[in-house]
């Protein structure tokens, strides 16, 4: 939780992102952001946050009411046109003033489901129970995912839930809060933001010793109605992974935007990520879920590992909507 406003939060992050590669805002060809009015409790909330960018002289800029990963996609599209060579993407979420569990109920259809105000954790639990009962995952399996996240998060200064000593027994000893899930099965809420700079070809090589190249990126959506979907499958993530070329070569690591251990188990199965792949070295969204930014953070974390030379090929995933309804896959490579 932060007492800084979104604009104060982002002014520091944007400056850090640009100056890390020696760019000023005037050098950036296109800027794109992602955020949510309902999260902020304000209409046009992103207008104020534009103040953090330094948008004068005026900038070519757009905004999606989505996770920043989709702003990242829009910026990538602009770069594909070939008329600009740099783009800045940012997103942020400050969920502490409101109640995410209630706010997210308003993502559902407004006639049949939203008036029942299903809490967001309960919606996650409906899917988790199916996965458990279909034998796709076990409670121990979920606990192992929670342990891995908390241990990996120890080295991540941005994580809000980390532990170097937690064990599967500790997790299973936790009280069930949203049947069948325990506190450690659900992502820890966090206020925060993320900024990423993209550049094409030679410009990227000039700006960065080892850029993380976007080899493929795709996103797809499934129907929303929970009772229509088979919640034990995620066709949209399978399609996105395939179209992004994820399985065309081995993958060293994956950063997954899972809001629960059950979602992570399902993503591993649907994308086909085996035990040889390092999963969520940052701890993932489980260790700190910043609504509207956690997806972009996955891309940023994966890119960071590549830039540091710790991986050659990485997969980043972002999601939106209830029960992994909409999914984006980005494949990054070091060379």
């Amino acid at each position: 939780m932060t007492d800084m406003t979104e604009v104060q939060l982002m002014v520091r992050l944007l400056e850090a992102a640009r100056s890390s590669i020696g760019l000023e805002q005037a050098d950036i060809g296109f800027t794109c952001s992602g955020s949510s009015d309902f999260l902020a409790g304000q209409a046009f909330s992103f207008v104020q946050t534009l103040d953090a960018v330094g948008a004068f002289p005026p900038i070519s800029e757009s905004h999606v009411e989505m996770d920043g990963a989709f702003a990242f996609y829009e910026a990538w599209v602009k770069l594909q046109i070939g008329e600009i060579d740099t783009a800045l993407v940012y997103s942020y979420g400050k969920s502490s003033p409101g109640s995410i569990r209630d706010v997210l109920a308003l993502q559902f259809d407004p006639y049949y489901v939203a008036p029942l105000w299903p809490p967001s954790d309960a919606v996650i639990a409906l899917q988790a129970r199916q996965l458990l009962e279909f034998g796709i995952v076990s409670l121990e399996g979920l606990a192992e995912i929670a342990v891995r996240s908390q241990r990996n998060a120890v080295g991540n200064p941005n994580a809000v839930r980390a532990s170097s000593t937690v064990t599967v027994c500790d997790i299973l000893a936790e009280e069930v809060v949203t049947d069948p899930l325990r506190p450690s099965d659900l992502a820890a809420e966090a206020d925060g933001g993320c900024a990423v700079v993209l550049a094409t070809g030679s410009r990227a090589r000039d700006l960065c010793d080892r850029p993380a190249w976007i080899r493929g990126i795709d996103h797809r959506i499934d129907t929303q109605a929970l009772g229509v979907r088979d919640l034990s499958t995620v066709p949209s993530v399978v399609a996105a992974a395939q179209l992004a070329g994820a399985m065309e070569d081995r993958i060293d690591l994956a950063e997954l935007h899972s809001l629960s251990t059950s979602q992570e188990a399902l993503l591993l199965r649907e994308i086909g990520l085996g035990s040889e792949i390092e999963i969520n070295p940052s701890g993932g969204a489980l260790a700190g879920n910043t609504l509207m930014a956690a997806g972009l953070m996955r891309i940023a974390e994966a890119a960071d590992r590549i830039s540091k030379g710790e991986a050659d090929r990485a997969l980043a995933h972002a999601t939106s909507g209830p029960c992994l309804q909409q999914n984006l896959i980005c494949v990054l490579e070091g060379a």
Partner: protein
Amino acid sequence: MMRWGPWETPTSFGKSLTSDKSKHEFKTRYGNVRDTDLRVDLVLEYPFSRSTGKVIGAFLTGLREGVLLGIRRPDGTVMVPPVEYDPVTGEQLSELLEVGHSGEIISWTWVDPPRPQSPWDKPHGLALIKLDGADTAMLHAVFAGSPEELFTGMRVTALWRDKREGHITDILGFISEVRS
């Protein structure tokens, strides 16, 4: 706490915003700023009035009259609650038909404590329920004494509100078919 929005009277607005809790002690406190003293508790509320169109309107009419409706897809399967457009092909759907008041729990969880606007003010189940005659499941509350009473595959039946107006909460929730 301040309210914002025409909750009781749709034509007028609630009280304006001021900072709270700061009135009495500010002089002595100045210079030692404590942000928590300036917290603002805002409630955004509005009684959205939605036009339904014919398909959703028909389902809500059915609820008002104590009838549950589904809609038939070209492949013959039945969706409950009825949607206006086919989720796979995008085609408009039009044939509404009656389905049963009872069905089977496909998945469930337990809401405890209930949220401020939950359909029930005591701990309750939340479940995906496939009604008899339907091929898809609907989300609703399930009433039980504890989560131990609920299980996937459990037969449940709708508990209707006495005074119904054409709203998803005309069904209070579902209860065990055996108990009913």
